[in-house]
Every structure is written in structure tokens, then in C-alpha cells.
């Protein structure tokens, strides 16, 4: 680890100097430097074992067989078919209303747990070595590291190599120079995406290998001949089908920094620094001819190279003056950021075999394309702070940022902030209060800005198309994006009030903050009437208000031979939309089969759907319900709430059924130390956010005989087997509101997790001295060992894989979260 310290700056005043890059708070990471004195050599090694944290609860073979028969039979009956009609295509007209005969005797079929096939217990090794030292004038730090990790999903693995150097020197009494260079190279091999979905959705009744020696599936399983055309095949689900693929990424990241600091008057310094970051990504994907299936495929190979050069120039004048009890600090400067991106891709198809996995071997040139973009952010900044006796503190910051991403006249934004502090415990009247060792009151008010979206979003675009006249091909041009020159900064105004209290000589300390933030000019891809020719326009659309509180209590419970510290953190915030567009009309966005609504006074990106109300257990219940449905309803179907009470179910009955925002999050950390042992553990959790379980939805809707989640064993099957009253019956024909967004898919995302446990042993100095070492520590660490949760979605902590705010809280089939057990050693020479 080359990190010296990590500081989180939350209030607007402390993050204001970071301008638009600090819109969501700032995490300051300071890397390690050398220290004057004897050179230090440090070595760390960790060996870990990773396994899947939690398997998804899916049906086993016999359960699945019954469910598959139920789905076909229910579809047939609801279509008006005779329940006793023979299970033949002649009698039932369509294969989907029939089922493969062997499903009736599931004991004769395999019962494969595909998650066991797709996942593995995987090792990981990490090692790093650092060397540092220096004298009063010069300091240096060098380190190298490597990670070698096998993934918990077959075919995934990762290696990373790093090299870091940092040095600084006092050249003379007025010049300080330094710099660093970090290089990392990594390789990643990704699993086939069908492996991730197939692990939970491929039916358990198929064997790993069929009798023909190829991968097992309906295509080589006796009795499935007539159905395999409509069933999920090995190609789409067997975890081994992608083994012969390659999906590789190589990344080279180089970050360099050079700075010079000139003291030209006492208390007045000039600092100039130049940072450059170069990233090169090589991505390739080879889809093979041979997938160990009876048929071969048209192989394709795609290769993409992307480079990004990001450089920053920063020039600051720094003034520090201290006289008597006064301290004055001031900074003024200028910063320029530039990002240059270029990528190029080529694709060929039609490979004769899988031996040569390069473009050269493909017989058809399919694609050659490139992409380029440039981004620039310029800033002028200034800050002045004053401190009297560490008792009264005040600072004012001003920053003006210009971003290339906004409209021609909207590039610049101003982000001022102010903060004041009062350390009351320094006042004479507090002298007598023994209990309170520290009392500090803080208040700040400031602005930050957001330009974190794609380049050129305000610019109109002409795209190229093609058309034909007879056999004559021509190029066409058409407008594909509309101009929005008014695109401007999204600004957030934060008021923060904080109090720090230390009790009993700081044995117990409390930090509390309440804040209120108001954002205006919210940037969103706003739906517009498609009659305009466009479905969305990226624009500043509204305002959002957030109120929050954060608490952090640290307590030194025991300080004797056994020390014990505890830390509790608690954070809660509530956001609501206060303004939306010119007329405050609600904004509905349909995504991922769950609609989202933004509405005045409501949490942003709330789930908007029909309100599910359990299962109609029998015909009598349907008849007793006065509500009219615009389609036919049968026993075992879902019941929905007539929200607007007009006696019928219609689009107007959609309502807000939840949101992903938790009521609060918390963490609880404990550290113990006794003799040479140290022990710590950390629980954290979240209460109240909702998760939309897109995985369950897939297993129900892709009714090509995919496996179902285990909870559907509690479904309605008949009046005699009504299930748990929540899960409606299965059917190959999804009908009515079952196919529309509803609260049926919303689950409670609350969870508590034992995130981290560490037990360490530090060897006694006697022993290390004999070995000629400075220190040795051995430790065991466990990550994600225990989770308590309500949702069937597999991991509520990682409930979204996208940065799109409209998909927050949506759980797809992510790469599974791992549980990690590690043993490590840390040696200092």
C-alpha cells in the first residue's frame, strides 16, 4: 500500500477549492513519501482464497420439472384449452403448450447445480515491496507490487503490476522540486456474459455433457427432441460454452507529476505543478468457431485500442503569515485540465478455425472505425483563511470554472464558499468544565458545480446514413441530435452545520453534521414528445433538495493492557424534487422494464408502477372483486390495486411503489489490542432502500424454459395448493399486468453485513531485533463473511452496475460478490 492518508472532505467549503471535481465531496488520497533517517525496506505478502458470497436460490431438477409443466399447462388452460388434452403438438397446436415427456419423471433426469459449475474457489496473491528514505534535503520512495488473482467465475482472472517512484528535494533555500511517476499494467480476462446468466437460469435437468460428448442441453437429451427448438440451449446458458472464447483487456496507466515551489519572499511561495496521466486500453474479443456444441459458429474477432491523455497544469501563489495569535493563509492560482481521447477498432469475421486469434486470420473485414474527443476545464481559484489562537477560524474561497461541455455562452460557473469555526473549549469559561475536553462548532455555506457527463452534448449532430437507388448505393446525411446552446452548469448549494465534541480527555468524541443542499439546473436526459423527432434531450431540467445528518462517535472503551476502541457512524438523508421543467409536470422514464418517475415533492427516480396486491386464489375472489380489468383474469393471476378508485384498472392506476434511496446507512467498527495481538471487525448496513429484482423478472419472462428462483416454489398452483398468496402462477403466456412494471418486483434492500474481520499478531521486538528487522506482523483477514438481508436479489450492496441514475436500485446478473479469506505477512527491515 502506497497510501499515506485518506481524508474525506464533505462540506462545501473544504471541497470548494476542488471546484466541479468536488461536487460530490472530495476524497484526498496522499501517497507515501520517504522520511528523513535510516532507509526503510518494507515487504507485504497476502495470500487469499475467494469464494462466492452467496449462491442464488434457484429450483432443483424436480422442482424445475414441475414448474415447467405448470407453465405449459397453465398457458394452455388460460387460452381455453381442455386441461385433459394429451400432451402432443397435434392436440395443443403449439409446442409451448406441451412439455418434454421426461419432465414427468424428473428422477430419470440429471439434477445439475450450474452455479457449482460456473463458480470456483479461487486463489489470489498480492505482494509489494517498498524502499524509502532520505535526509533533510532529499526524500525518496520507491515501490513495486503485483496482484495475481483468479476469478470466482470460471475463465475470469486478473494480474496487475505496479511501479511507483516519488522524490523531492530542497535545491536551495528558495527552491523545492519534486515529482512522482506511477506505472501500472494489468491484464484482465472476462467470463462470457452467458456464463453469469446461465449459472442461475440454465435448467438443472440438463447434464454437463450429453451422450454425444458435447455440452449438455435440450439438443442432446433424449425426450427433448421436439422441444429443443424453443428451449434455452447450451449456447445461451451452459457455463462452459464460452470457455473457448477470449475477452481480454490490457491496460497501461502512467501517471506523472513534476512540481517546483519557489519561496521568493518570507511567507510568499509560488508553486507550479504539471500532472499527466496516460491511459492505454487494449480490448479484444474472440468468438470461436468451436464451442463444444454439435454445430459450429461463424467466428468473429474484434480488437479495440483506446488512448487517453489527461494533463493538468496548476500554478498557485501561496501566502502564509503568522503574527502573535493571528494566522493568515491565502492561495490564488490558475489551473488547466485537458483530456484527449482517441480509439480505433477493427473487426473481422469468418475464421476457418480457432488457431489464430488475430485480425489477420479472418476472411471478411467487417468493421473499421474510430472515435475521438477532447475536453477542457479551466479554473481560476482563490482562498483566504484566518485563524485566531485556534479559537476563531474563518475562510472564504472563490473558484471560477469553465468547461468545454456547456453551451457557447454558458461555459463558466462561479463557485464561492464561506466557512467559520469556533473552538468553544478554548474559551476561559470552559476551563472549569472538566468533562468536555473539546467543543468545536463549524458552519459553512458554498457552491459546487457538476459537468460530469459526455462531451459535446449541447452540439447538434449530422449522422451519416445510406440509401439505395436500384443497385446504386449513396451516402445520406440526417440530423441525429438537436442543439441545446443553453446547456449550463448544474450547481449545488450546501449549508452545513457541524459540532465536534470531545469528552473525558477525548476518550469519547462525537462529530455531528447536519446539512441542507439544493441543486438547480439538474442535468438529465429528459424525455420529450417523440412527435418532435427526438425522444430525449439533454438539458438542465429542475431542482433538488437534500437534507441530511451524519454522526460519528468514537470511543476508547478500554485503555489498559487490553485496549478497545469503537466507532459508530450513521448517515441519513432525504432528497426531493422541488422544481421540474417549465411547468413542474411529472417526468416518466421507462427503463429496464421498470418505469421511473420524477415528481415534485417526491424522491428522485422513484419506481413508478402498478400496485401488486397478491394472488386471486379462486374464481369466487375474482367475481367478488368489483374492479374491472381490461383483460381476462383467471384464478392464480395477480390482483392489482385500483389506486384512483374509478372501478377499473387502467394506466392511471400506476403510482410510486418505492425508491432506491435508503432511510439511513450505518457502520460499527471495533478495534482490540492485547499484548501482541490486534483484532478488529466492521459491520455496516443500510435500511430502507428498495431493490428492483430484474433477475427474478428475467427468469419468469424469458419463458424458454429457464430455471426459476427458488421462491417460486411457493407459487399458486391450484386452489388446493395456493402457495404463499404472493407469487402468482407460472405460465408460458404472460398475461395482463403480469407483464407490466408492478410492485411485485420491488423488494426491501435493507441489509447488514460483516464487512471486515482482521486478527493480527506482531512479533516481539526481542525476536525481530535478533533477526535484524524492524517489525513483523502476521494477520488473518476476512471480507464479506456474513450478510443479513430480506431481498432475494443477490447482493443489495451492489444493486446496480450502471451510473445511469434511472437504473439505480436495479439488480441484474452482476459478477457475483466474493467472500475472501486472507493470510498476510508484513515485514519491515
Amino acid at each position, binding site marked *: 500500500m502506497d497510501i499515506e492518508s485518506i481524508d474525506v472532505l464533505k462540506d462545501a467549503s473544504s471541497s470548494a477549492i476542488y471546484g466541479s471535481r468536488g461536487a460530490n465531496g472530495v476524497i484526498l488520497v496522499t501517497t507515501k513519501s520517504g522520511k528523513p533517517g535510516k532507509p526503510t525496506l518494507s515487504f507485504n505478502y497476502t495470500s487469499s482464497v475467494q469464494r462466492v458470497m452467496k449462491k442464488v436460490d434457484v429450483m432443483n431438477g424436480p422442482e424445475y420439472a414441475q414448474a415447467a409443466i405448470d407453465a405449459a399447462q397453465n398457458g394452455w388452460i388460460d387460452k381455453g384449452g381442455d386441461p385433459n388434452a394429451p400432451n402432443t403438438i397435434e392436440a395443443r397446436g403449439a409446442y409451448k403448450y406441451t412439455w418434454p415427456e421426461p419432465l414427468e419423471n424428473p428422477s430419470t433426469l440429471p439434477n445439475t447445480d450450474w452455479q457449482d459449475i460456473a463458480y470456483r474457489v479461487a486463489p489470489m496473491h498480492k505482494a509489494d515491496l517498498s524502499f524509502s528514505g532520505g535526509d533533510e534535503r532529499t526524500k525518496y520512495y520507491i515501490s513495486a507490487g503485483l496482484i495475481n488473482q483468479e476469478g470466482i467465475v470460471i475463465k475470469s482472472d486478473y494480474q496487475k503490476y505496479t511501479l511507483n517512484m516519488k522524490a523531492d528535494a530542497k535545491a536551495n533555500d528558495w527552491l523545492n522540486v519534486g515529482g512522482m511517476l506511477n506505472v501500472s499494467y494489468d491484464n484482465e480476462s472476462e467470463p462470457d456474459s452467458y456464463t453469469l446468466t446461465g449459472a442461475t437460469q440454465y435448467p438443472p435437468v440438463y447434464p454437463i455433457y450429453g451422450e454425444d460428448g458435447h455440452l449438455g442441453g435440450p439438443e442432446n437429451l433424449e425426450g427433448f427432441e421436439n422441444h429443443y427448438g424453443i428451449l434455452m440451449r447450451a449456447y445461451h446458458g451452459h457455463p462452459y460454452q464460452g470457455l473457448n472464447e477470449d475477452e481480454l483487456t490490457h491496460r497501461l496507466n502512467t501517471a506523472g507529476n513534476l512540481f517546483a515551489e519557489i519561496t521568493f519572499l518570507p511567507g510568499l511561495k509560488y508553486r507550479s505543478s504539471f500532472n499527466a496521466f496516460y491511459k492505454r486500453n487494449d480490448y479484444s474479443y474472440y468468438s470461436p468457431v468451436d464451442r463444444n456444441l454439435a454445430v459450429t459458429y461463424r467466428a468473429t474477432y474484434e480488437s479495440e485500442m483506446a488512448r487517453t491523455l489527461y494533463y493538468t497544469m496548476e500554478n498557485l501563489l501561496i501566502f502564509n503569515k503568522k503574527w502573535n495569535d493571528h494566522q493568515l493563509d491565502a492561495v490564488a492560482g490558475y489551473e488547466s485540465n485537458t483530456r484527449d481521447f482517441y480509439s480505433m477498432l477493427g473487426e473481422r469475421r469468418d475464421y476457418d478455425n480457432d488457431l489464430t486469434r488475430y485480425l489477420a486470420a479472418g476472411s471478411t473485414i467487417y468493421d473499421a472505425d474510430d472515435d475521438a474527443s477532447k475536453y477542457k476545464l479551466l479554473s481560476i481559484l482563490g482562498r483566504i483563511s484566518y485563524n485566531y489562537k485556534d479559537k476563531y477560524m474563518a475562510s472564504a474561497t472563490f473558484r471560477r470554472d469553465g468547461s468545454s461541455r456547456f453551451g457557447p455562452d454558458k461555459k463558466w460557473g462561479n463557485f464561492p464558499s464561506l466557512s467559520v469555526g469556533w473552538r468553544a473549549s478554548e474559551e476561559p469559561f470552559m476551563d472549569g468544565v472538566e468533562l468536555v475536553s473539546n467543543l468545536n462548532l463549524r458552519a459553512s455555506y458554498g457552491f459546487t458545480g457538476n459537468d460530469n457527463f459526455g462531451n459535446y452534448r449541447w452540439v447538434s449532430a449530422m449522422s451519416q446514413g445510406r440509401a439505395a437507388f436500384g443497385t446504386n448505393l449513396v451516402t445520406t446525411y440526417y440530423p441525429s441530435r438537436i442543439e441545446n446552446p443553453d446547456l449550463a452548469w448544474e450547481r449545488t448549494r450546501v449549508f452545513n452545520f457541524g459540532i465536534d465534541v470531545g469528552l473525558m480527555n477525548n476518550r469519547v468524541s462525537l462529530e455531528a453534521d447536519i446539512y441542507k443542499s439544493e441543486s438547480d439546473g439538474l442535468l438529465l436526459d429528459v424525455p420529450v414528445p*417523440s412527435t418532435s*423527432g427526438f425522444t430525449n434531450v439533454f438539458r438542465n431540467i429542475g431542482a433538488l433538495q437534500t437534507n441530511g445528518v451524519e454522526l460519528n462517535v468514537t470511543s476508547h472503551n478500554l485503555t489498559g493492557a487490553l485496549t478497545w476502541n469503537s466507532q459508530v457512524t450513521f448517515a441519513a438523508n432525504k432528497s426531493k424534487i422541488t422544481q421540474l421543467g417549465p411547468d413542474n409536470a411529472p417526468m416518466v422514464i421507462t427503463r429496464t422494464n421498470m418505469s421511473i418517475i420524477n415528481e415534485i415533492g417526491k424522491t428522485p427516480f422513484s419506481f413508478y408502477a402498478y400496485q401488486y396486491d397478491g394472488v386471486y386464489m379462486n374464481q369466487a375472489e375474482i367475481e367478488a372483486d368489483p374492479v374491472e380489468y381490461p383483460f381476462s383474469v383467471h384464478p392464480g393471476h395477480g390482483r392489482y390495486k385500483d389506486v384512483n378508485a374509478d372501478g377499473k384498472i387502467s394506466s392511471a392506476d400506476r403510482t410510486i411503489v418505492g425508491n432506491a434511496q435508503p432511510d439511513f446507512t450505518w457502520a460499527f467498527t471495533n478495534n482490540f489490542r492485547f499484548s501482541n495481538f490486534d483484532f478488529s471487525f466492521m459491520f455496516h448496513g443500510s435500511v430502507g432502500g428498495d431493490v428492483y429484482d430484474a433477475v427474478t423478472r428475467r427468469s419468469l419472462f424469458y419463458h424458454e424454459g429457464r430455471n426459476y428462483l427458488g421462491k417460486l416454489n411457493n407459487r399458486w398452483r391450484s386452489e388446493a395448493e395456493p402457495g404463499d398468496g404472493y407469487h402468482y402462477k407460472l405460465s408460458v403466456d404472460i398475461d395482463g399486468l403480469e407483464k407490466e412494471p408492478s410492485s411485485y418486483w420491488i423488494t426491501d434492500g435493507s441489509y447488514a453485513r460483516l464487512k471486515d474481520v482482521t486478527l493480527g499478531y506482531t512479533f516481539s521486538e526481542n525476536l525481530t531485533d535478533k533477526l535484524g528487522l524492524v517489525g513483523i506482523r502476521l494477520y488473518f483477514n476476512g471480507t464479506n463473511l456474513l450478510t443479513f438481508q430480506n431481498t432475494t436479489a443477490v447482493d443489495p450492496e451492489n444493486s446496480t452496475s450502471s451510473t445511469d441514475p434511472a437504473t439505480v436500485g436495479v439488480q441484474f446478473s452482476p459478477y457475483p460478490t466474493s467472500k475472501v479469506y486472507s493470510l498476510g505477512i508484513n515485514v519491515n527491515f
Partner: protein
Amino acid sequence: MNMKPIKYFLIVSFLFSMSACDEDLQLYPLNQISEGSFYNNQLELQQAVNDVYRQLGRLADARSVADLYGELYSDNTYIAFQLGGTPVDDPISRHEIRPSNDRILTAWNNTYNSIYICNNLIYQLENTKVAIDQSLKSRWMAEALLVRSFAYFNLVRAFGDIPLITQRISPTQAYDYLRESDDKVYEQLIADLTFAKNNLPTSYTGKDVGRVTKYGASALLAKVYLTMGNKAAAQTELEFIINSNQFSLDANNDGTVNKTDYLHIFAPGTKNSKSSILEAQYLAGPNAFNSNHQTAYAPYHHAFHLPGITAVFRGGGVNSPTADLVAEFEEGDPRQEVTVYPGYVNQGTGDFVEYPFTMKFFDPIWTNPGQNFEIIRYADILLMYAEVTGNAQYLNMVRARVGLPPFGSAGYPSNLYPTLDLAIEHERRVELALEMHRFFDLARTGRAAEVMQGKETVPGFSGNRLLFPIPEYAIDVNPDLTQNQGYD
């Protein structure tokens, strides 16, 4: 050594760098043109005009409004099987559409996008400073107006009253465009198509063959009049086309009219034949302008392969021909074999798979097909003419081409189709099956509810769903839009 000068040099350079330059921030896309920098000369305007033909292709492609309403909604086709996500095609086929249907939303959005592109082009042509010959400019306007008319004609027939936008508008203005009465839409169609007819040439030569002509505009106008019930006006347009002697049933232009002419229309590579009046142009091959008909209509089955081709591909599974359509063909009608193929052999097992599909869009370049699509062809003109005149002679020309006995003769199945109206309905169905006419025809003649009753694939169809629902999402975005009756 005195380092002071260096020190001050560094400070001066710092002060220079403070001059933040606004021009540095004026960045524009590097690998794409912005709209403001286009339409500068005749070539660029021409390239923009060409795009309306890409739009014509989209409007006549699989899953367009014309396809969904004309075929999928009719008794010609059904969905044998499809998987994945929320079913969207099957409910259309079974007349159980929910307003949230995503397929209809996409078709609606795409159609209005095409309309926007036409409107924008008209705006650019009206305001251009480039000196262009007035007759060429009028022709370009006419090309755009014809394509826009085709879009609106499909919309008004499938959705009834619709937002009618005839100029380039901004997204903000779009909220004010609510549903106009269909009368007003038809009025606009007549005006636009009349302009198109007056300003388009009768034909093209060389690399321009395939652009829309005077007769294409006239044919569309005839259909508009027929749909409005104005048979006299329709007759005038149809006579304009028939009397031009530019077109004939002799599609392959070999001097004889027989069944090979019918087959020629659907042969791969046939472009702008003698029978074509208005035709969407596509081109096969990679990086060309491909059509989706063959891919979308092919069986949703992994063992599917086209006749004579061993490569398998799973199609979209829409518009599988119904048994009811097969039954409509008379004994020995050669049109049946290209309209409906009964199935294919599973090459893995050797079994024959009964899964009907159409060969009307057959293209052996199946990975990137590009068969043209005749939006209006001569047989359609003759059948419309028979309808407006009540003269069976024009119906019988179409029948004679495929060797079937004339209406009124002993061999004619008059027990099934006793009147000329029914005979024309029957003939239109078998002649034009899967060419996006069927449900438009039934709705136009007021026969839809009656004919659709009792069709196996359409349980409980009632006459209050002759129109598609306005997409729920369009109403969500603009709540001032109203819904069609029968949909909640």
C-alpha cells in the same frame, strides 16, 4: 551564481499563464459534423434529400406501423413462437394490445422521426441560400412530401386522429401539437401528394432510377381517396397511371404476362420492375442499406435455414403465415408457393419442421439482405380500379396472369366469393399477402370486425379496437394526448 533572474522569470511566466482563454473551451465534435455546418452547397443538400429514401425504407420495413397494422394485426399472420422479455408482438397478433406495448411505441417514435427528417429538409430547402434550379428544388420538396405523406397515411389509418406536424419544430413546441382530426390529416395528404404529383418527373434515368415519380405520388393519392371513400377521385388517379402505359403486369418485361411475372417480383435482386409504381429501395451486403423483412419474418427457431442454403439462423418469428391464409388460396394458385413455405428440414435430425414462413422477401445474402419492397404495384392498381369501377375485367387481368379462371366464369369459386366486392377482397388477400395491405383493406371496407370474428388466432376481437392505442409512454410524456377508445 545569482539565481534571482530565473526566479523572477518563473513568476512572470506564471502571471502570463493566468490569462484563461475562453476560446480554448469552444470545442466541437472531432469526428462528426454539427448540423449548423451542413447544407452549404448543392451536393450537401442532395445528400440530405437522399436521406428521405432511407426514411422510406424504414417506413416500409418490418415492424413499421404499416407492417404491424397491415399484417401482424390481420388474419394473415400469427406468432408461432417468440421468447424473451415482455412479449410485444404476440399481443398485437392476438388483438390483446396494452397501451404500454413497446413495439407500437417504437414504430410510433420511428415514424415521427422520419417525419421530422422530412420537415427539417423542407425547412432547409425553403431557407437555403444556395442557388439551386427551381425545378430541382421543387422536385426535392416533392420527394420529401411524398415520403412524409406515406408516414402520415400509415399513422392516420392505424391510430386515427394524430398530431399533424408539417414544419420543423422544437421539442418544446411539440407539447402543443395534439391530436388533429383525421379529416384534417387527409386534407393535408391530398394537398401534399398533389404537390408531389405536380412536381415529380414521370421517370428517371441511370443512377436515379428508384426515386419516387409522379405516378408514385398519384398511386398513393388514389389509395388516400379510396380510403376516404371518394371513388371518383381515386378513379381519376388510377386512370392517370393505367393510361400512362408505363406499367404493366409483365414485371419481367419479356412481352408475355404469366406466372413468371408474379414470381419475378419476389426474385432476389429484382429492382424497380415494370410492375413497380412506388418501391422502397434496399441493397444487400455489408455496409449497404439492408432490409429486415426476411430476418424478422423467418421462424424463431435455431434450426431454421432458407431453401438451398445450409447456414442456419434464428429469425424474428413475426408474421408467420396462418393456416387461414393458406386456405384462402385456390387450388393450383402459383402465388401460394412463394407466399407460404410450409417449413424446412432440421439438418441436425433430418426431420421436417412444420413452421410456415414466407418467401416473398427471399434474399440469399441472408446475413445482410436487401430485397426491394414494392409499396404499390400494378396488380394493386388494377384491383383498386376494379373496386372503384365495379368492372371485373381488371380483377380478371390479375387472375389471368397466374392462370386462374375469371370471376363470373364456371371455374370461379363463386360459392365462396359470390359478389364482386368479395371477389376483390379475396383477390387482394392472396395477391398482396404479407405486403402490408390486409388490415388496411379490411378497415377501409368496414369488413374488419366481421372478417376477424372467429379467426382462431384472434379470441374475442371486438370492433372497438379497429385502431391501435396511442402509446402509453407518449401520453406519459405529454399527458394532453388522448387515448383511443377500448384502451386503458
